[in-house]
């Protein structure tokens, strides 16, 4: 399961990077009737303005993927640094607010932030606000566990500075946790980025964007369902495969259960 989902995530990423070069038509130019059903030249038919759906599908992943990666990396970085510090110091910060963070869905802070920030910045900010505390929690637990290991004690007794011990001894030992956690943050960011794109709060490029395609083609569901189903399928596969890989990675990093 893990290998399959990783392979699928790899395929989606490869299509995203190479797709724009493979698109058979200009993804921004109308070449069919609006919402034309699939035909020989246009296997997935046309969209709301008669643009080729397959071309837009191939061109439309890059922005979402890059934005989600940036947001996930920011959240993981903040959470990992905080988790190292909290785990080393034995602090139990954030225990009181943890329920609230779990219960308040990420979309609400993202919408509130979108009042004063551009849509893309709101995605990054909300991913950090909602995700970094969760990363902090798991990294803190892993760090607290690594603290008393022999090599860490040895480094401390050698008189190395705390920062050096944390970065050179502890971080490599717990690195599997933030690496797997990055996947979960990516899924959150992708959900947020696609939600704000569907709500029209981000600037989608003229060449298309999988989430914006959902919004554009909803009203034509009866004329060309493929224009709606194809980007939905790609988004679902991407998020499912990354989440599955992240869960497997976390189980592996904490050594609990079988990495199915």
């Amino acid at each position, binding site marked *: 399961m893990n290998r399959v989902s990783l392979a699928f995530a790899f395929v989606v990423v490869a299509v995203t990077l190479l797709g724009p070069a493979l698109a058979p038509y200009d993804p921004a130019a109308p070449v069919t009737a609006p919402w034309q059903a699939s035909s020989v030249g246009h296997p997935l038919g046309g969209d709301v303005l008669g643009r080729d759906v397959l071309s837009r599908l191939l061109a439309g992943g890059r922005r979402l993927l890059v934005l989600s990666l940036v947001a996930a990396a920011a959240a993981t970085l903040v959470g990992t640094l905080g988790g190292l510090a909290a785990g080393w110091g034995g602090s139990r910060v954030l225990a009181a607010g943890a329920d609230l963070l779990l219960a308040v869905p990420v979309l609400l*802070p993202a919408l509130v932030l979108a*009042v004063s920030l551009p849509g893309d910045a709101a995605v990054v900010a909300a991913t950090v606000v909602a995700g970094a505390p969760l990363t902090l929690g798991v990294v803190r637990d892993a760090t607290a566990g690594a603290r008393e290991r022999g090599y860490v004690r040895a480094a401390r007794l050698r008189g190395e500075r705390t920062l050096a011990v944390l970065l050179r001894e502890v971080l490599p030992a717990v690195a599997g946790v933030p690496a797997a956690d990055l996947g979960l943050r990516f899924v959150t960011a992708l959900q947020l980025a696609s939600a704000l794109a*569907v709500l029209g709060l981000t600037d989608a490029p003229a060449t298309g964007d999988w989430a914006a395609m*959902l919004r554009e083609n909803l009203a034509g569901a009866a004329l060309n369902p493929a224009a*709606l189903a194809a980007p*939905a399928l790609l988004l679902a596969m991407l998020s499912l495969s990354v989440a599955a890989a992240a869960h497997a990675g976390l189980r592996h990093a904490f050594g609990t259960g079988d990495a199915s």
Partner: protein
Amino acid sequence: MRLSAPAGLSRAVLAPLRAVVLLAVVSVAVFAATELLPGDAADAVGAGRASAAQLAGLRAERGLDRPGWERWASWASALLHGDAGRSLLTGRPVVDVIGGRLPATAVLAGSAFALTAPLVLLGCVLAGRRALRRPGDAGGGLATALTAVPQVVVAAALAALLSGVLRWVPPVSLLPPGGGPPDPSILVLPVLTLALPSAAFGVALLGGVVADALRRPYVTDALVRGVPAGRVLRRHVLPVLAAPALRVLAVVVGGLAAGGALVETVFGYAGAGELLVSSVAARDTPVVQLLGLGSATAVLAVLLLADLVPVRS
């Protein structure tokens, strides 16, 4: 929790206190996110056409030149007195603007909840049966996996299937212009889009707790001794589940509030969620503030209930 001897008393005092503190924190966060970042209400009203002098006059008139904490304090105290200000867009009182949208949202959220609750129950029963039959298996993988799927994808897939391929329901859910009850067929897509991800989330959180509760030694002992399953469930399993179930309820309420914004906008259903999104797009800060705070309050209220229920471990 680590509460000791007078646990019941301190819980009754501490839990509401904690909820009030969290509510204050949330109100600061909402206010800071909407007011203190660059681009204030004067910019929004001026829309780039007003001169610097007009903007300064507007800021002085609305008190935007005062320090942030002072503005938060006056906003919060006005809110406590029931005054949420006026919409920057229409000039109508925010409470009226939101109140007009609440019935439609109540119909949608109520129907979605009425579908979510039995689905979560069903999922938990299945998780429990699985735990009894295969004790070593963690389970819950499918529900956890499904929570990763973005809600917009659920919306698009349901619309492509139910309204595109099968043509059972309309792809947009416009309310009748004169008010009155909506046609049930327009509720199908928004209710399913809200309920299915919420149910998956609920099962992902609660299914594992149910499986753990059933694997406890005293439960297996009672079953082996031949105590009827119904009594084991009533006496040993359900009391353990009350507090976690209320926590999951809070998560589901939050999911319905946020999902409502998405689903109402996607399907063109004129409720409070659609109002939130259009107010964000129009930078109508007072409306966003009250809707954001209101949703957070609903979640906090259910969390408070969960805190007040005695925890049995």
